[in-house]
């Protein structure tokens, strides 16, 4: 096992990793930017080190600063969290070159799964169905040709992207002609790589993902699926497990096929395979996330597995220490992303000081957050203030507990989406478990915002 881990991230996930380290008896150093000096992780850590200014490109995204911080503080591993450098094969390689361990898949594995388009081909070869799509698009003419073959509507996606960023829905050839160049330049600006591919757009689909873990010895388990269909502009807002859309047989089928395919493809460490499930219940693989995910707590609540600890163990070369038969998922869990944004004002991100904060409690309630009264929410990073996760033996009770917890949760001084969550919870489509990814965008957020203000 490692003796000391550098936590190269911020916000709630930095705190989550710190907690895992403490639980495991492993030392931890929190690396923070100047804007995060007062963050909870930096405050609570036994050791914290400032790696650069607020601008992430010069701190959390700047590999030399992160690695240098690990070296000078005597760490033997780096945990990248999610976002930032977490799936950067080049970074993982340089970390190793400095004699440190990267907590995640090896550089080779990250490299192999770096391109979404190539990943789809690999996993297709290992038995997963993928959405009809194109290879890399050479130019506009090629894009038009491919769109014709696949059939409109199509999604144009940056190969290097993630989290729904930089995607464009195109319904006609005219639209394609006018957006293709924009997509290229957006991909170039956003991800430093302008390669694009195209996928058939499934109108009424759900977003499901399967959580897997593979050790270096090829032992693999899945920890069930998560349903992340409540989205706004491709950004997840609410996640739950198990998915209300799957029968037990369909769940077993999807999860076991996913874990078999990814193990056969030589994957390593924690990973999430994302699928779109159409109205008929057919699941199409779309991409893999080679890191811990924001919504991991709901899987932890149902399985009882500390996933960050498991991730660290695998990176340290240890065995999973369990088989699929040992993974038992109980009850139902729902996570709500508490965001500093104003639903009544086009979801504009908010910053400023948290004047008051009160965490909810009660059975099956978990709050992962880095905020506290007096904390200044910096404007430099994403708007995630925290995650409220609720567990109950069944879905209806989980919804009831969630509503009670959301009512208790107090974040004062800054506008949040707490009321929007309550409005979604109260919506029949959600209660019936029939949310599709386009719901919020199709009906618009306005009814929910209005209901939330009542």
């Amino acid at each position, binding site marked *: 096992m490692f003796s000391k881990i550098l936590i190269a991230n911020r916000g709630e996930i930095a705190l989550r990793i710190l907690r895992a380290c403490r639980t495991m008896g492993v030392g931890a150093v929190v690396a923070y930017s*100047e804007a995060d000096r*007062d963050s909870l992780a930096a405050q609570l850590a036994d050791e914290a*080190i*400032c790696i*650069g200014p607020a601008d992430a490109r010069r701190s959390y995204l700047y590999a*030399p600063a992160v*690695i*240098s911080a690990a070296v000078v503080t005597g760490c033997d591993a780096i945990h990248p969290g999610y976002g930032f450098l977490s799936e950067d094969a080049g970074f993982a390689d340089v970390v190793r070159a400095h004699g440190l361990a990267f907590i995640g898949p090896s550089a080779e594995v990250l490299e192999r799964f770096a391109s979404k388009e190539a990943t789809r081909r690999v996993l297709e070869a290992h038995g997963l169905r993928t959405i009809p799509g194109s290879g890399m698009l050479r130019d506009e003419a090629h894009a038009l040709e491919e769109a014709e073959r696949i059939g409109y509507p199509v999604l144009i996606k940056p190969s290097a992207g993630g989290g729904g960023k930089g995607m464009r829905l195109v319904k006609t050839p005219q639209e394609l002609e006018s957006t293709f160049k924009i997509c290229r330049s957006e991909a170039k600006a956003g991800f430093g790589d302008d390669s694009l591919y195209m996928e058939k757009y499934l109108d009424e689909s759900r977003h499901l993902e399967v959580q897997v873990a593979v050790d270096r010895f090829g032992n693999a388990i899945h920890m069930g699926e998560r349903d992340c269909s409540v989205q706004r502009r491709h950004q997840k807002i609410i996640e739950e497990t198990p998915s209300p859309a799957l029968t037990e047989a369909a769940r077993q089928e999807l999860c076991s096929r996913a874990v078999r395919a990814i193990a056969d493809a030589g994957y390593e460490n924690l990973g999430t395979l994302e699928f779109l499930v159409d109205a008929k219940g057919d699941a199409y693989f779309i991409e893999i996330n080679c890191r811990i995910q924001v919504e991991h707590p709901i899987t932890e609540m149902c399985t009882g597995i500390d996933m960050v600890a498991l991730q660290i163990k695998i990176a340290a070369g240890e065995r999973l220490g369990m088989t699929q038969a040992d993974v038992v998922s109980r009850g139902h869990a729902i996570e709500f992303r508490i965001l500093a944004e104003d639903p009544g004002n086009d979801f504009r991100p908010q910053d400023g000081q948290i004047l008051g904060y009160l965490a909810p409690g009660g059975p099956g309630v978990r709050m992962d957050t880095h905020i506290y009264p007096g904390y200044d929410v*910096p404007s430099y990073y994403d708007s995630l203030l925290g995650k409220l996760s609720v567990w109950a033996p069944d879905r209806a009770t989980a919804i009831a507990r969630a509503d009670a917890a959301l009512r208790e949760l107090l974040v004062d001084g800054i506008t949040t989406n707490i009321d929007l969550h309550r409005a979604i919870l109260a919506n029949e489509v959600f209660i019936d478990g029939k949310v599709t990814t386009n719901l919020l965008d199709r009906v618009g957020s306005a009814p929910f915002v209005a209901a939330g203000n009542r």
Partner: protein
Amino acid sequence: MPQDRQARTERDHKAISDLADDLLPALIARLAASGLGEIEVREGEWKARLRKPAGADDRKVAGRGPVDGRSAHGIPPGRGPAAGTAYVAVEDRERLAREQQQARDLADAPIVATSPAVGVFAPRKDLAIGMRVRAGDRLGTVDVLGVREDVVAPVDGVVGLSLTEAGEAVEYGQELIRIELPENSRGLEVNGADREAAAVLGEA
């Protein structure tokens, strides 16, 4: 007597030039780094007072800048010498008394060269306390995985106490070396309210 007169004039010119070279840049830097609107120091028969033009206090504008006070010890961009206009003013006693404490606090706030990166610190070989440096002069380096980044003096001044040992690990923005006001400003006392001095950079 003409000879005495000439000697006095030369002395004055030298004093004025020293003030302009050594004292003013340091004062301007301190004024810029502080939240004060005005600062005054006196030496012998000379008194210098600097005041920011109304509205020039950009602290509030930059209110959501670095959380860390340390990084503000250098001259922040746009707050260099041009940001504060120095001129002569005669002030009422009450205000001077009130500002006396503020100025004293300010004089106590050290100016420090900070680390440009996280790494291992190495001072310049010939660095010694009392050495005169100009703003931007290299005082040492921080080794970031074999790449050296310069530690520079934030203002003109004199090298003071080193706050970090050679070979020590430092974080971004860490205070490394104090920069004192120049030699000839030592012993400067903060404005005494009993004396209304007349001029800065002019004849008394």
